[in-house]
């Protein structure tokens, strides 16, 4: 047997292949590490194990030792240690690795088990594939194809259960498709802490439901749709909209709060159809809030800005930048950056503030943390502004300082990067006193009043990074192109810096990071391409004195203040 590299690892044998796994790893995960797929339905790495689907049955055995002397018993034919294989198969999800555990997944017994379970799951299952949203990402389809018998022997009547029930405001339930794996119930109890789902009746008539009058309406209800292995729980918003095999998946980050839940953006031909969580065991496991999934609606919102303007007139980008440059060179500039901007954008925003000798502000957004995946800081990237030096102190909700400065006549031009100044606390009167250069995506008070309007991109249309509450640097990627007429924020900011008389800077992330890594101590030795999929935790101690608002949540404990 191979000796494992580290004392916390033990060696197990999967289909003849030895592999070292951490102690306590279950057989499904151990097999995955060995490159072997053990099919399953009810097992989920982030929920308790129930072992009820029986699809992960495998053969297990332990090396044979003489009970008295503890010496290995050898097989005379091969000279290797004999393995005592169990007479019955065992479920992989509930079998934890022990030193010397042997697993077989390709024997006739295992094939029979899988065919049997598949057959049983399909006998009462409605033939809904042609109209079922889950098609293309359905565990039943995949495992029936991979491990099923391939034909039906069932000629009896199938169970009839309620179909297309509105289980809650965002979730539709089809009880005939349900395979009673209980993932949704376990999720609601264990993660969302909302004990609202349960099984009624008995045997094959068991049915998932809510108590009459109650609904599945917590802000994590759509995670049950994500984890439902079949089309029983589906998203009402997504119902019948698009076949999943047409959709491109792009990794992104939820901008709802500083949690920075990892997401997947699903789009086809430039249109986003849904957002789902992306697994990150250090940030959000496999979950995200329902509310965070709605942000893609701003991509095609009715008020989406797509026309460059100087005053009321359409203009070219060149002309608008030149006009803005003249304003910036006129002095008395203030810069309002955003906690929703990327680290790269905040770096350029700071360059702009520096080269125009402008004070820089950020607009705070706060709410009550839900102790799960929505933190009290509703900006995804305040820490980016802090790390890049754009701001020194945490932002307030209203721009009081800026308002005072305007009233004192100290401000002639404001550059706002995506923040509506009226919503941020300025009055229309104050706004009227200044010339605004506005980089934005949605029509609002500020865009209407802007002297130079430069439509920019949403997080779904550009590339960049955010730093979340854990000081974790995480990448997001462009899923769809922006509308014609909108320009990438980095391009706009770099051109504004140049027009203001500042240095010539890169306008795309990879090149920008050379400068970032060189100038910002916390970001030294990082390359954009080198940032891992699961993010990179930075050293946040230089900012430990700041009164960050977040409380405890999933995978987050606020650091003690120094």
């Amino acid at each position: 047997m191979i000796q494992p590299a580290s004392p916390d690892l033990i060696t197990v044998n999967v289909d003849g292949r030895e592999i070292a796994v951490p102690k306590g790893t279950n057989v499904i995960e151990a097999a995955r590490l060995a490159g072997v797929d053990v099919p399953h339905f009810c097992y989920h790495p982030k929920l308790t194990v129930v072992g009820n689907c029986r699809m992960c049955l495998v053969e297990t055995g332990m090396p044979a030792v003489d009970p008295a002397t503890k010496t290995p018993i050898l097989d005379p034919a091969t000279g290797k240690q004999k393995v005592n294989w169990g007479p019955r198969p065992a479920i992989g999800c509930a079998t934890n690795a022990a030193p010397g555990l042997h697993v077989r997944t390709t024997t006739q017994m295992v094939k029979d088990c899988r065919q049997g379970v598949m057959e049983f799951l399909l006998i009462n299952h409605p033939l809904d594939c042609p109209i079922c949203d889950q098609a293309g990402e359905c565990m039943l389809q995949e495992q029936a194809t991979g491990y099923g018998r391939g034909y039906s022997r069932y000629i009896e009547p199938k169970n009839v259960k309620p179909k297309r029930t509105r289980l809650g405001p965002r979730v539709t339930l089809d009880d005939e498709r349900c395979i009673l794996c209980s993932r949704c119930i376990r999720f609601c109890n264990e993660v969302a802490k909302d004990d609202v789902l349960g099984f009624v009746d008995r045997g094959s008539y068991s049915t998932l439901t809510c108590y009459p009058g109650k609904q599945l309406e917590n802000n994590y209800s759509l995670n049950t749709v994500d984890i439902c292995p079949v089309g029983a729980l589906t998203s009402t918003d997504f119902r019948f909209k698009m076949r999943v095999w047409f959709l491109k998946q792009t990794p992104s980050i939820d901008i709802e709060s500083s949690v920075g839940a990892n997401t997947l953006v699903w789009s086809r031909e430039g249109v986003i159809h849904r957002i789902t969580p992306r697994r990150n065991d250090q940030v959000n496991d496999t979950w995200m809030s329902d509310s965070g999934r709605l942000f893609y609606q701003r991509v095609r919102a009715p008020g989406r800005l797509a026309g460059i303007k100087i005053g009321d007139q359409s203009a070219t980008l060149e002309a608008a930048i030149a006009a803005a440059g003249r304003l910036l060179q006129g002095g008395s500039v203030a810069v309002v950056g955003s906690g929703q901007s990327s680290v790269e954008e905040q770096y350029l925003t700071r360059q702009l503030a520096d080269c125009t000798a402008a004070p820089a502000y950020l607009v705070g957004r706060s709410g009550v943390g839900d102790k799960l995946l929505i933190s009290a800081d509703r900006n995804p990237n305040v820490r980016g502004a802090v790390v890049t030096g754009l701001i020194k102190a945490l932002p307030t909700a209203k721009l009081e300082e800026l308002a005072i400065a305007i009233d004192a006549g100290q401000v002639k031009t404001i550059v706002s990067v995506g923040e509506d100044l009226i919503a941020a606390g300025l009055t229309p009167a104050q706004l009227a006193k200044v010339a605004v250069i506005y980089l934005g995506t949605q029509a609002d008070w500020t865009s209407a009043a802007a002297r130079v309007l430069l439509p920019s991109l949403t997080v779904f249309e550009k590339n960049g990074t955010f730093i979340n509450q854990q000081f974790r640097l995480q990448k997001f990627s462009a899923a769809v192109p922006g509308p014609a007429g909108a320009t990438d924020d980095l391009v706009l900011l770099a051109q504004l810096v140049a027009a203001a008389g500042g240095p010539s800077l890169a306008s795309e992330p990879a090149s920008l990071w050379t400068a970032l890594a060189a100038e910002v101590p916390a970001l030294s030795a990082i390359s954009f391409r080198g940032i891992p999929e699961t993010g990179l935790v930075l050293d946040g101690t230089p900012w430990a004195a700041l009164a960050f608002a977040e409380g405890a949540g999933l995978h987050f404990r606020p650091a003690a203040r120094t």
Partner: protein
Amino acid sequence: MAEQRRLIFQHIDEPGYSNDLACYLRHGGYEVLRKVVAKPPAEVVDEVKKSGLRGRGGAGFPCGVKWTLLDRKSGKPIYLVVNADESEPGTFKDRYIIHQDPHQKLEGIMITCFANNVKQAYVYIRGEFPEGARILEAAIAEARAANFVGPNILGTPYSCEIYVHRGAGAYICGEETGLIESLEGKRPYPRIKPPYFPAVLGLYQCPTIVNNVETLCHVKHIAAMGGEAYAKIGTPNNTGTRIFCVSGQVKKPGYYEFEVGKLTLGQLLNEVCGGPLPGRTFKAVIPGGSSAKVLKFGERYKGKRKVGAEMVDFDWALEDVPLDFDSLALAGSMGGSGGVIVMDDSVSMVEALGNINAFYGHESCGQCTPCREGSAWMQRVTARMVHGQARKEDGALLKNIADQIAGRTICAFGEACAWPTQSFVAKFGAEFEAYAAKPAKSPAAIELV
């Protein structure tokens, strides 16, 4: 042939014997408990181990071993749960203990609790025994008043409380972890083992013993006569007495207590129970509750078995099979709960299986795929056959479905619902095939489905 030995059933149906404490005391009641609490608890465990007592609920697991597996080091309270959920079709013995001799059971419970440092016991009694629950509660109240139950038993520092908990009509609550889930107030879904062995993670995740009513009565007698003396009753590895419950098509159905292994199946059915009904011949018998595999009259069983230290040949007709756990296992069935159901030549085996499959389809809890879907499927196939739409291949299909269930489920219900189908089809396959030609209505044409 051996005579009945009424150890547990000594006072059942005895004229003048009533279920109150006064009567029990008149017959020497609670003297064993008095003896036991004066000695170290470990002694009782020793005696039970020496006795070789095997559980009488259906699994036949050695009681002493079960107690030894208890995690006594966890620091968590240890519970005793009495399985009074008697629901295995064909079984009707615990009913009489509960209704007619409850104090015998209570004394067995208290001895078991003392032996295992249990401070809290629950009697899980099936909901369909409402009178039994009332009788038990009254008996416990009497026993508590007389200091046999409750704080400081018989003046010792040992205290133990018992409460009665009524079930509500689910067979799966007879499965020990299903019972525990039911006691905890949840849907009675049996737990996966590992890791949830009751001896380690039982009731409220504390070490728990689950024992059948009759088993606990045997404990009292073992404590009285000593484990070695008990082990001399019955046959080696199948010690003591057990109550056989005979029902179905025999002249004298009823309960009979014999030393285990001291009589054969033939003796029980022909001599004790008077043989078949007039004009009929025996066709099949299920020897251990409906979950046990059926035995066909006319079969023979051959092989080698251990007698003492030697391997000895055996060659039995059905009538020759000794009624003990090991022999019935060698004959391809099991001793189970002791429920013996007899069928004669008037019965269609397809219809009988239809009746049994309807039971399992109804009682499946629905937690795991093979049992939930498979038991319902088998129920529907046999029902279709009985109602005149059988196909030639249905027998083979039934057996194949059953093969896909047994050994693949969370609990033994999988085997329980699969074994009847497997054995009926294997042994009476011709009847199943013949149903496709025309539904074979037997002359007596009794409705079973």
